């Protein structure tokens, strides 16, 4: 990564370590952003390998490759890794790289906190995956096997893998909270003069809401897993009916965090989309104000819909009706976003480089996620969908087609700015098409499996589910292998490639495109003029 300063003389006397020391001690938002993104890419492959093992087992009926206990570990750790170690760090990497550049700030408001926030991640990732290794040596019986949702009392019963996961979640949570505090403070306090809140780029708005959601809900998750820890080891009975507690309390606390979490994963992407669409349509962003208010509305609504994750647990009819309607209400601000995205494209002069391909793919496939989410909200029909493969397909459309493909959009869009080189466009397009086709091949059959009655989190299944499972597995392997193209493209682009201008893309607009590609070590040495 070449961020070497072009003003060498001005840096006389400053401390610029090289090698490992540089990365361990850096407080530069660009370096830290790079570390978040690198960590995320590695963990994406780790989580991906886990689920390929799962899909290999599910290729045919019968148990061929692993015991059910191990299967249960793989599915839970896959989810924890993808959510906490791949998606969230990627979004945080984007925030670190781009927010200061976009708002004309010299760096994040709290640069040292920024460094700590990142360096908590590698130990947390090790904690999550260590139990697998320990089990190989006969210590403990493996990683957490309750699914990423940790439901009590199963999680109270579980072995030491649960304790490792609890600790990892605490550390990951603290890291996210540190990052969120930094982002809020930076956006409020470090904008260049003239950058009013209603001139703030939508990516920053998306992250602002995300950061508030994280601060409001992560502590509740931390509380829930702390209570789980004390139920497990210190004689409390929060989730044990025999002791006066209630297992469903855990579900309330977990999903109070868990539902906003999915919007935490998506809001940064929703903030990024208008930038990409406006750039490649060569038109101004449509409905800036509407999108800002939609972000805020979605953020607020996301906190009051959590029980739709456990309609079948049994709750009073008024509660069922309330949660159904409040959940459906989220479709309204979301529809505003879709409208504004398409209206941004409408009557533009579009070209379809890789970032735009991913953006359009995101809109279509995330649309499927949103629409299937709407029917899942229906309590009556949910009796059939809940905890079946229909839900698995729905949330993969939301989190892969929405979250991960959104991240890929951002990577292709900003990689030339970060590195100063253009990536390989042919390879990018190939990656896009392979990803989209194989993704659908993997998950469309899963909708039908759910409708046919296949529950989730089972290592083996009845014979009528065999065909769709086989197709899904084939799709998954193609999907996994295609991501190697992505990694290769990124790696080559870092090493070299055709040089790019400050304004990498013809239609790009914003302060970040006034800086060189790559930007200088000190991003904004001179104050930008905000239009």
């Amino acid at each position, binding site marked *: 990564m070449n961020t070497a300063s072009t003003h060498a003389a001005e840096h006389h006397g400053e401390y610029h370590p090289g090698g490992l020391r540089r990365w361990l001690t850096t407080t530069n938002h660009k370096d830290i952003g790079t570390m978040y993104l690198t960590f995320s890419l590695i963990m994406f492959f780790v989580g991906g390998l886990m689920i390929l093992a799962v899909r290999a087992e599910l290729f045919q009926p019968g148990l061929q490759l692993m015991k059910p206990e191990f299967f249960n570990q793989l599915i839970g750790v896959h989810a924890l890794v993808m959510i906490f170690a791949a998606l969230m760090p990627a979004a945080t990497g984007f925030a670190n790289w781009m927010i200061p550049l976009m708002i004309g700030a010299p760096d994040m408001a709290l640069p040292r906190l920024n460094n700590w926030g990142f360096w908590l991640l590698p130990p947390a990732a090790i904690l999550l995956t260590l139990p697998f290794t320990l089990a190989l040596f006969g210590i403990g019986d493996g990683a957490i096997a309750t699914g990423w949702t940790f439901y009590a009392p*199963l999680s109270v019963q579980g072995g030491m893998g649960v304790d490792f996961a609890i600790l990892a979640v605490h550390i990951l949570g603290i890291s996210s909270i540190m990052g969120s505090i930094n982002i809020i403070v930076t956006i409020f306090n470090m904008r260049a003069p003239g950058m009013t809140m209603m001139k703030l780029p939508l990516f920053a708005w998306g992250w602002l809401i995300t950061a508030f959601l994280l601060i409001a809900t992560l502590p509740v998750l931390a509380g829930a897993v702390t209570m789980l820890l004390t139920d497990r080891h210190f004689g409390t009975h929060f989730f044990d009916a025999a002791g006066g507690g209630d297992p469903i309390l855990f579900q309330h606390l977990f999903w109070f965090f868990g539902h906003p979490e999915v919007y935490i994963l998506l809001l940064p992407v929703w903030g990024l989309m208008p930038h990409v669409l406006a750039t490649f349509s*060569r038109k*101004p962003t449509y409905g800036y104000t509407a999108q800002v208010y939609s972000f805020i509305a979605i953020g607020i609504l996301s906190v009051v819909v959590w029980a739709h994750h456990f309609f079948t647990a049994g709750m009073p009819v008024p509660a069922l009706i309330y949660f159904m309607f409040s959940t459906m209400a989220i479709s309204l601000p979301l529809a505003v976003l879709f409208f504004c995205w398409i209206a941004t494209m409408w009557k533009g*002069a579009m070209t379809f480089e890789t970032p735009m391909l991913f953006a359009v793919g995101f809109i279509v496939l995330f*649309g499927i996620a949103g629409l299937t989410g709407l029917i899942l909200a229906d309590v*009556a029909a949910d009796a059939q969908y809940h905890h079946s493969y229909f839900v698995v397909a729905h949330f993969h459309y939301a989190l892969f087609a929405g979250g991960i493909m959104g991240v890929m959009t951002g990577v292709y869009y900003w990689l030339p700015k970060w590195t100063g080189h253009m990536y390989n466009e042919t390879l990018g397009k190939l990656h896009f098409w392979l990803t989209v086709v194989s993704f659908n091949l993997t998950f469309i059959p899963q909708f*039908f499996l759910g409708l046919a009655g296949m529950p989730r989190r*089972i*290592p083996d299944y009845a014979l009528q589910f065999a065909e769709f499972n086989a197709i899904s597995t084939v799709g998954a392997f193609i999907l996994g292998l295609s991501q190697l193209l992505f990694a290769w493209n990124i790696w080559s682009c870092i090493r070299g490639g055709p040089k790019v201008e400050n304004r990498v893309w013809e239609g790009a607009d914003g302060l970040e495109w006034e800086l060189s590609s790559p930007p200088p070590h000190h991003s904004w040495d001179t104050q930008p003029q905000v239009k």
Partner: protein
Amino acid sequence: MVIVPRDSSASRHNRRPTLLRRAACLAPAVFPVAAGAGYSFNFPEPVTPIARETLHIHNEFMLIITTLFVVVFAIMIYSMIRHRKSIGHQPSKFSGPTGALQWFWALIPFAILLFIDFVLMGIPAVQAIINMEDTKTKADLVLKVTGMQWKWQYEYPEAGVKFISTLATPRDQIANAETKGEHYLLEVDKPVVLPVGKKVRVLLTSTDVIHTWWVPQFGVKRDAIPGFLRETWVLIEKPGIYRGQCAELCGKDHGFMPVVVHAVPEPEYLAWLEAQKAEARAAAGGADRSWSRDELMAEGKAVYEKVCAACHQPDGKGLPPAFPALAGSQIVNGPLLDMNGKAVKDSHVDRVMHGKAGTAMQAFATSLSDVELAAVITYERNSFGNQKGDMIQPAQIKSLR
């Protein structure tokens, strides 16, 4: 039975045809599937009013969201074709609605969605929910379902009938050592029997962790939560055999605890119930007589294999640390009862009858009879290399309750 699947995916997708075609070619060799099964695109046939209502709602909603999808993305694709730089289209400069007409176009979709959500979808949904939750009106009988790791216990409280229903698929089929049967993983030793045409109030609970009772053709899915009672209801309209599964991750054999319900005309149901009551009386009577060592060992072996082997393994070696070994176990080789004939805390009898809190070892006193408990305890103490030589009578177990 080895049948070729109907549809080869290779023809539908022209990406990487070699890989897909190869996979499809493997299919006949590898899928022992009954012909005709496999490509279903909707819920299975509904046999209760709830299931029919749910299917109707689902179909309606699928139509609505498919229409929304097609309309919205037709507009977007149109734009992608016509508003391209390469055909010379000049970009406009608008960034919001200008003028009344544009405001109309912007707000109309919002209004339509509002209507769809809260009227078109919402109102039928509310009706359905109220029907679904109405468990008590005109219920004809009660079925109590208890989830356990990893089996279901069914109870007909009014008749005093209680039994456990376990997966009947042989482990060899799961391990791919035998061809899989038609109802692989969806067959049990003792199915639930219910009368057709009667409203059954289903009460659910669990002895250990959360399980979920789900029979797709009934349209019913309800959590079984330890320490709490949940309810739902079914009114089966058509005789038949209906199969479902546990739908909440509950440990290692979550995928291996199916639900099988035989719905039969009422006279047949009543006859079956009588037979069950007679069996229960016989089993209870068994506790009053003295059992020989051989009788206890034989019965104990059967109980062990059905109830205990899943965790403690057929050879008694267990899967430590979660499932301790019984072979050479301190507890199994410890005292049976104290001097007064009472159970010693944390002893073998105590453990089997009352379980161990905070672990998967549940209290089998609620699900096994006196005979079964006495037999399995005797069996364990004299198998797997254990040679305690003692035994315990059903009557002694009965006195400990």
